[in-house]
């Protein structure tokens, strides 16, 4: 429903500039947490995630006339976020000599998150351990695999949506997903 709502908001043409701006603000308010979540989970850096989220919305607003409605606004925004993420990681690799301290998002509070999320589970400790293992593995996955993995299992996007967001073909998306899952399950098997 959100997709439809945002698509309708952007799709309308006969609007005044202020209305349009107000609508885009509504879209930004709606989509900002989602984009931030994806970027934070990908980078594990608060500052970078915040900056890229802002950049993403800014870029979307600037290029809003290029949006043709071929995919939903949500997917379009995610596509921009994925591109920004790729550029950011590429630049960070080039600047490997920089020793600036990054504002890494603390995962120390992850325990509380997991406990609160799994109160109804019988073997809480086992699942906690498994989820922690997935966190660790996801961080070390190659960028493309990690992106596809997060889009699938955090953002609940299906393969066509992931294709639209990443610009990959369905076969490539499935291959990256398969490899990511294989790594994750292997790690889970080792821990078990």
């Amino acid at each position, binding site marked *: 429903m959100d997709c439809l709502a945002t698509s309708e908001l952007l799709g309308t043409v006969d609007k005044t500039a202020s209305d349009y701006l107000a609508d885009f603000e509504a879209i930004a308010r709606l989509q900002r947490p989602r984009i931030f*979540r994806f970027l934070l989970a990908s980078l594990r850096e608060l500052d970078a995630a915040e900056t890229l989220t802002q950049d993403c919305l800014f870029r979307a607003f600037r290029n809003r006339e290029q949006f043709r409605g071929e995919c939903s606004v949500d997917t379009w925004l995610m596509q921009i976020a994925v591109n920004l993420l790729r550029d950011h990681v590429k630049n960070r690799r080039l600047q490997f000599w920089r020793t600036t301290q990054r504002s890494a998002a603390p995962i120390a509070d992850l325990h509380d*998150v997991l406990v609160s999320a799994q109160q109804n589970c019988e073997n809480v400790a086992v699942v906690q351990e498994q*989820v922690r293992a*997935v966190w660790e593995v996801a961080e070390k996955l190659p960028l493309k695999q990690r992106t596809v993995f997060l889009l699938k*299992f955090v953002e609940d996007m299906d*393969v066509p949506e992931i294709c639209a967001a990443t610009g990959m073909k369905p076969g490539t998306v499935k291959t990256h997903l398969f490899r990511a899952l*294989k790594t994750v399950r292997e790690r*889970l098997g080792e821990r078990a």
Partner: protein
Amino acid sequence: MTRHLSPEEISSWLAGDQDRALQSHLGQCPKCCDELRQSEEVLSRFGESVRVWSQGHLPVSPSRSFIRGQIATPFWLKAHAGVTIVTLLALLMSSRHWLSTQTVTKTHSAVETSPAVTDSALLAQLNRQLSTAVPESMEPLTELIVSDRQSRMEERNSGVRGIGQ
């Protein structure tokens, strides 16, 4: 199907490759079904934990209208405008200062030159007075002398003319 699903087949299923053979096996094999369900649950918990975790780190809405903040007046534009205003003010103030100093020096010079001018005028007057051969009190006499000389000259001229005729 007698054998259980391999880890690759389960990963493939989770990745979206859900063909009929796998589906039919999962319908018959509780062990594979259980393994798949466990994996799905872990992945689902992982997604949930990421959502909860990021919610905790989501910065308080940076600005109610990020568009106005980002587009109407981006930072570089603000900085540029600020620098321009400061530069213009500095230029204005310096030009005013320069103008005021110029007028001050002009008035100073005017004030300073006026006695000099009067002094020089007085000096010139004195020089003129001193350079005159006859004192002022005796000027009527010089006029008489001059008129006498003129009459003599006229007489002499008339005499010369008479001899000539």
